């Protein structure tokens, strides 16, 4: 089967507050790819993800969606890209004035210009998919952290994204709520969703990921399959880093 | 237009300067009296026994619920028409203004003080009493100093309002900044220029008051009661 590149970043450079936070990052996601972004705090993972969605406009480099370069300056291309590239935030960022169902349907109506009914129907399907059939009419303030994150995943999925970017989707959750979100992510993986996820959940993502991408100080320093990088006899930065996390969290790497 | 500068320097500014002194003589005492009234009535509304509490509530409701201009009109025009036997209250315009401003301002301060008091956890008062303080000592020394810090930015705002609303004194014949300005404008037929300068006087007063109040607030600041960042 021929591999088809969905989203590709070439040599992305990004300055924030006078610092060069990304110093030439290239990464490509083929259809069905699951890549996991790891690296120390401040290494630029969130910044990279937000550049891929053009929430940050890079100062240098290029972005290709379905092999076509995206013009950052063109607003409509920018909105198009954001629709096709879904984003899950660490702190959920649900719209506080809208119920779970409305959170999912609002962008269908306002961005995709769907009718009220059609959007509501789709929202129900997506919420069912993440196991929230009975919480559709609750407001964000009435939901637990895990439920909020699942709504935010449903919200992104409703837009039929070609890629999903996840920025530490479980870091803001209490330990007992993490698994309900991981289950949803695992289902997405099973169904072939293309994903790039920043996370500290090493063992979970090692079982899922096709590739680990290790970032340090604004560049990608290592990448490869988790098996290679974490192998018994490997001497990778990734392995050291994972060992450190494992020590901290008591997780088996 | 060519005589704009001479007009401003020779007529407007000297006139407004004398008005400025009058305004300040109204604002400063009203601000202090208002604050005292506000602290007392605010405290009554939280801690005083039922009748005093209710009377304080009513005072605040009445003075916040009606326009200051109506209140001033009452003190200056209506009250002298009222007598109980031979007894009749007639106050000079300046006294009316200070009484009116203080009572109105006090009602607004009261609201902030009350809010500040209610935001202090009840444990503070209990702890004070547990040390053997009587309730009044505990309120005065433990609760009020904390509440006042919480209420300060509200009270600052109220003082800024007072500065602006002191212009109402001009409608009861007082020659404050606004009163002087009106006189100059009428005589010279140069409304825009005159009233713009009048406006600048108030902007300057308000800005100055803001600086002073901010300094005071900073001075009183203790950890845990920092000014909220806007």
């Amino acid at each position, binding site marked *: 089967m021929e591999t088809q590149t969905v989203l590709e970043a070439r040599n992305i450079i990004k300055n924030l507050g006078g610092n060069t936070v990304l110093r030439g990052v290239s990464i490509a996601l083929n259809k069905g790819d699951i890549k996991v972004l790891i690296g120390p705090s401040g290494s630029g993972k969130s910044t990279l993800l937000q550049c891929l*969605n053009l*929430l940050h406009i890079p100062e240098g480099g290029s972005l290709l969606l379905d092999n076509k370069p995206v013009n950052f300056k063109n*607003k409509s291309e920018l*909105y198009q890209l*954001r*629709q096709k590239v879904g*984003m899950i*935030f660490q*702190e*959920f*960022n*649900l*719209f*506080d*004035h809208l119920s779970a169902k409305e959170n999912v349907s*609002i*962008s269908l109506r*306002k*961005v995709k210009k769907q009718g009220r009914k059609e959007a509501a129907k789709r929202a129900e399907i997506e919420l069912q998919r993440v196991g929230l059939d009975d919480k559709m009419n*609750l*407001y*964000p*303030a009435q939901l637990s952290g895990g439920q909020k994150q699942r709504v*935010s995943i449903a*919200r*992104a999925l409703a*837009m039929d994204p070609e890629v999903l970017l996840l920025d530490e989707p479980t870091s803001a959750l209490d330990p007992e709520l993490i698994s309900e979100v991981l289950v949803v992510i695992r289902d997405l993986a099973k169904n072939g969703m293309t994903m790039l996820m920043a996370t500290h959940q090493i063992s979970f993502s090692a079982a899922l990921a096709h590739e680990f991408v290790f970032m340090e100080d604004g560049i990608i320093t290592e990448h490869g399959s988790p098996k290679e990088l974490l192998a018994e006899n490997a001497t990778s930065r990734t392995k050291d880093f994972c060992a450190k996390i494992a020590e901290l969290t008591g997780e088996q790497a | 237009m060519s005589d704009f500068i001479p007009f401003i320097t020779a007529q407007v500014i000297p006139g407004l300067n004398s008005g400025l002194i009058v305004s300040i003589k109204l604002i400063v005492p009203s601000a202090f009296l208002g604050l005292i009234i506000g602290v007392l009535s605010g405290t009554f509304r939280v801690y005083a026994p039922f009748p005093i509490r209710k009377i304080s509530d009513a005072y605040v409701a*009445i003075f*916040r*619920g*009606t*326009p*200051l*201009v*109506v*209140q001033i*009109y*009452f003190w200056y*025009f*209506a009250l002298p*028409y009222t007598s109980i036997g031979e007894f009749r209250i007639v106050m000079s315009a300046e006294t009316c203004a200070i009484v009116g401003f203080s009572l109105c301002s006090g009602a607004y301060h009261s609201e902030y003080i009350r809010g500040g008091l209610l935001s202090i956890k009840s444990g503070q008062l209990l702890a004070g009493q547990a040390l053997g303080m009587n309730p009044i000592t505990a309120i005065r020394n433990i609760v009020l100093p904390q509440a006042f810090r919480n209420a300060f930015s509200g009270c600052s705002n109220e003082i800024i309002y007072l500065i*602006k609303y*002191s*212009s*109402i004194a*001009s409608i009861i014949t007082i020659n404050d900044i*606004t009163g002087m*300005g*009106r006189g100059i*404008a009428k005589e010279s037929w140069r*409304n*825009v220029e005159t*009233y*713009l300068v*009048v*406006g600048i006087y*108030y*902007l300057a007063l*308000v800005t100055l008051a803001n600086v002073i109040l901010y300094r005071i607030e900073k001075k009183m600041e203790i950890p845990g009661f920092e000014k909220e960042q*806007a």
Partner: protein
Amino acid sequence: MVDFFNPIIEALPYMVSGLWITVALVIGSMGLGLIVGVPFSALKVYGHPLIRKFIGLYVWFFRGVPVLVLFYLFYFGLLSWLAQISFLSFLPFNNAFFAAALVLGLTTGAYQTQIFKGAILALSPGQLKAARALGMSDFQAIKTIILPQALRFSLPAWSNEYSIILKDSALAYVIGVAELMSRTRSVAAITHKPLQLTLFAGLIFFVLTFIGVKGLKALEKKVKIKGYAQS
């Protein structure tokens, strides 16, 4: 005792028609303030630096100059200048009610700009990001996500603003608007009974404050977001 109330009863129709002018003035000014305040607050937060500067200047001026002085400045000054510009002549610059509504509207507009701006800044910043991530334009995101929440949270402050403008409207008599205070003064001057008339005017303002604040409180309850702890 009946004698005491007589001046009020005799003047009642005259006073009531003044009451309607007061009500119209307040509604008009609050509406104008809303029309100014909503876009200005969004522009103050998200707009071009130059626009932000300009709005800052506007807010500073109208919050620092007394309403009374603004009435004089606009009605006797600025508006009579504008009235002489021919292509603006369709606007009733010489009309006292128009001038009063304009001054009060621009004043409360400045305060409302501050109120909405505060509410926008109090929202969790991630929501705008999330809306953008879904492909909404900034305008859409502000309109559908930010403002509906900011306006809700502004209701208590807006209600306070209503009661301030209601009270400020009593100053409009200085430029000759025949509202409640103006009528109170003229009846008092004719009858020499300022006491009962002043008290009566005070009572009406009190009731208007009460009704407005209660109404807005009910609105606040009605549009409250479920489970949301913020008032």
